[in-house]
């Protein structure tokens, strides 16, 4: 266990200096890359053009690599689409009692592969000799922080938790409401409590008082307050924390019918369940057809990114709505109460707390959220930008994680370097790659003097780049097909036409990537570099 304080605040002078250094590093690196490329294009266009074409080649290989694993992740998602998780839970229960395991029947190749994976997981579980608690003893704690969401936004989520294949009587539903929230929001919570109290194990409303010491205006503070209240409640009910799985959901999160059954399964089958987070695949289908095209492909991109990440559990970090062992949450002292990016911060907090003995387990089940929609096109653009900047503000984890890693002597250097590099490189790539691919490639030609235009490179590089981008369109084609397959099959007006248009919307990706991905990321890194810290900004959700 580490006594490391996972916070930007109350640091010693030395720690503060170290923290500032690591706060400055990502922004400085991104700006250096971008300005360096501009300068190189101006002063040494031949070298810049060659560097650019090498980068394009590297990017193409990365794209193909990601596409291969995106396809695999999608395949796995579709394999598990019809899995009967309750049946599997029962099989694990049986294994607990009789120490025996009956091979499930396999009809069709999908089921065959799914069962093969299941058998492998069971094998791992039995080998660990750390058997799970009985399914009947497992409880779910669902915390939904809310601040300005209406009844219409909150209700579908609560209904989905209540109507799933897993018994809602094992779910403790907690609304974490900010005290400064409007009366309308509080009334909505009360109305929902009245409506659903009898469906769940219980239904609590935790009103988070404003201005508690050490807290910032962030979602993590609200969720933490609710978790503490829930802990007391569970203690009163004599439910051990190690039997509780906590899910902290965004207010608009709607889970698929088998979400809690699937989560229970993964919790049970995971030998290190008390030191694990469980990451579902987030999709943004709640209002996918009601938003402008650029917002639609942006969120599809986010889902695909998470799908690809799911194939790499060693490096998976929690994102957005997810679940984790409540025992771990209590032991790490809950979510950070002064950070905006609580979703990823809680993973790093636990990872450092347990000296690297913590993991994010991918779950091949979806939960759906809202795409930002502010009504008007321009306001939606502004809000999407702000939301992406908030996501990119996850870079605030970097300085804390780096400080934590410097003290976490029990984590191997390899692991520390691997995770640090991934975190750092991920943020730098987020802020710079779309600029390099979309804008910088033109600069050597734009600045070209006689020397450059008199070289063979001036003519060969555009040709090579064009071949690379043509090959990249293969990936784009696969992405379009997967995005069409992943979209909800609900009836919408002109469904076929809209799906065709959606395929074309993917052509906007270079522009969207610059304005709604790279720019917000660069904005967030620059703010961190300059010490202009962000607080939580609640995304508009409409129904």
């Amino acid at each position, binding site marked *: 266990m580490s006594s490391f304080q996972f916070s930007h605040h109350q640091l010693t002078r030395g720690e503060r200096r170290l923290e500032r250094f690591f706060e400055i590093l990502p922004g400085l690196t991104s700006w250096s890359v971008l300005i360096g490329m501009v300068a190189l294009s101006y002063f040494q266009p031949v070298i810049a053009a*060659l560097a650019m074409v*090498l980068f394009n*080649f*590297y990017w193409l*290989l990365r794209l193909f*690599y990601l596409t291969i694993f995106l396809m695999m992740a999608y395949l796995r998602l579709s394999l598990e689409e019809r899995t009967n998780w309750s049946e599997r839970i029962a099989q694990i229960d049986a294994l607990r009692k009789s120490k025996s395991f009956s091979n499930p029947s396999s009809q069709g190749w999908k089921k065959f592969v799914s069962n093969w994976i299941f058998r492998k997981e069971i094998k791992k579980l039995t080998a660990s000799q750390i058997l799970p608690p009985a399914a009947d003893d497992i409880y779910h704690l669902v915390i939904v922080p809310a601040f300005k969401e209406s009844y219409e936004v909150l209700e579908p989520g609560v209904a989905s938790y209540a109507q799933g294949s897993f018994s809602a009587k094992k779910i403790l539903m907690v609304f974490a409401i900010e005290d400064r929230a409007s009366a309308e929001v509080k009334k909505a919570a009360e109305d929902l409590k009245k409506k659903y109290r009898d469906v769940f194990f219980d239904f609590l409303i935790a009103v988070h008082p404003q201005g508690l010491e050490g807290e910032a205006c962030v979602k993590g503070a609200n969720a933490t307050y609710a978790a503490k209240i829930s802990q007391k409640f569970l203690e009163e009910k004599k439910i051990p924390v190690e039997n509780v799985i906590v899910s902290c959901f965004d207010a608009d999160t709607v889970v698929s019918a088998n979400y809690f059954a699937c989560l229970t399964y993964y919790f049970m089958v995971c030998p290190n369940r008390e030191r694990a987070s469980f990451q579902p695949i987030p999709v943004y289908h709640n209002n996918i057809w009601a938003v402008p095209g650029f917002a639609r492909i942006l969120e599809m991109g986010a889902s695909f990114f998470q799908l690809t990440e799911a194939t790499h559990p060693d490096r998976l970090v929690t994102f957005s709505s997810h679940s984790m062992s409540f025992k771990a949450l209590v032991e790490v002292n809950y979510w950070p109460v002064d950070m905006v990016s609580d979703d990823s911060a809680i993973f790093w907090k636990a990872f450092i707390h347990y000296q690297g003995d913590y993991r994010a387990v991918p779950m091949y089940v979806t939960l759906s959220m809202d795409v930002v929609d502010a009504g008007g096109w321009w306001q939606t653009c502004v809000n999407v930008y702000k939301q992406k900047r908030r996501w990119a503000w996850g870079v605030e984890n970097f300085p804390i994680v780096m400080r934590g890693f410097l003290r976490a002597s029990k984590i191997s250097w390899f692991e520390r370097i691997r995770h640090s590099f991934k975190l750092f490189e991920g943020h730098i790539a987020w802020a710079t790659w779309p600029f390099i691919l979309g804008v910088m490639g033109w600069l050597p030609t734009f600045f070209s003097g006689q020397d450059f235009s*008199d070289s*063979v490179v001036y*003519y060969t590089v555009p040709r090579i780049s064009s071949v690379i981008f043509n090959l990249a369109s293969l990936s784009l084609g696969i992405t379009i097909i997967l995005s069409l397959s992943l979209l909800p099959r609900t009836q919408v007006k002109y469904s076929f036409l809209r799906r065709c248009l959606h395929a074309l919307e993917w052509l906007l990706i270079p522009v969207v990537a610059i304005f709604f991905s790279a720019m917000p990321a660069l904005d967030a890194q620059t703010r961190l570099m300059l010490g202009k810290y962000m607080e939580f900004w609640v995304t508009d959700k409409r129904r």
Partner: protein
Amino acid sequence: MIKILRRITFFLFTAVFLIGAPKIIFYALGYNYQLGSKQGLTQTGLIYLSTTPPGATVYVNGRRYRELTPTVIRDLLPGNYAIRLSLKGYELWSQVVPVQEGKPSVLGKVLLRTQKPDWKVRSAHAYQAMRAIPQTPYLLLQPKDENKSVHLYDMRSREMRPLFLDSAQLHFSLQNFHFVSDSPYSVLEARQGEQVRLIGLDFTRLGTKKIIWEMPFETSLDQILWEKDDFKYGFALREGVLTRFDPQKKEQQILPLPPIRGFQVENHKIFYMAGDTFSNTDYAAKNSKPIWKDAESFLGNEKLTKIENFPDETTLFLSADGRFATNHPPRLIESSGVRGFQFDKKNRRALFWKDHAIGVVHFIDFKNEQGKRDAEINIQWIHQSGKKILRAYFAHDGAYTLFQDQNKVYLAELETFGLPVTVEVLEAQGDTEVYYTDELGQLFYLDKKTGYLMSLEIIPKWKVLEVPRAILEEKIMEDKVRA
């Protein structure tokens, strides 16, 4: 299993990158592995070919190349290559192109000449003379019928109208038109009895509103200049005396300068040549600063008919006896006979013409001993067998020149690896002016037989949606001429 697969894929992709990256770099730099007698790594060159219109079939040493123009022919070993271009409806084009290792041989603006010239009749009347107003879309046309007033033709809207709607406005005879490059203004010099009247015109205005001022002057003038986009003051030169006039206040002031041989107005400064010194001064001529001396040694002591300042500190001078010089060493470009010049700002070169020859002077930048930017000059002769070359224009973004020799118009290649090929384009009426604008890609001239205003498409431009009325008028005019 996914972990193993990931690892295999990772190492596979790393191997692809490590093998592919150097190959890409070598390819980008033009290196190629040759088999056979010249086995080994050789640096190749390439030929870039772009034609107007595009889509021409390319033949390299008689063999058809797989791509149409625009294209890059890569992996060429150093040597000479016979290139032939063919496009249906256009004349064949061919040239021997030398290729050097690591260098591109660029023919980026090959103009394929159509087999059916696209000429159009632009007027319903016959004219005896035409004069273009530089940098404006207007042509001034003098009708054959002396009683009719001067016409103004708008090359963009294709509208023809009298220069002055109310002929009663003019009770004097036209003497001269004065223009300034890139300026929408023009000054008309007219005589009324003994008195000279200057009339300021703004060609961005319509009809009678074109006249923005009128003022009397005592004598006729050698030259009138002004700032290209501001006509607060005009500057008039007469026998070495420079007069500043304010057309709004109708005031004139002789500037206290020594006798000057030529001048230019730019950026609120007057640049002038007095004796052998080139200087600049403010509008009141109170703070003169010499720029350089010793002008007589290469510009003689004649009047200067044209001084033009260009970006990158290049100034060109043309004297009345045809000496053509610049401020860059060795200063004298041509010692006699130059009739006029045109500057290509983009490519930093000037086209100049004499009675029998046309040349292009290239300005090549370098830093001089004092570390200041300077330029060397390099002259390329394009055509040296003219009879009486009257004017020349850069065409197709400087890749060609169109020039008028007596009443014939020729097109000559500038972007070439061999001797420039010159072809006759048309024959115009007498010695009247022809005018070409790259913006429209059209040559305007008076028809040799009818005197009608005609246009010939030199550079095919994208066809814009034409106003039906204009098309109809065109058709009527064409029918008339054919009849």
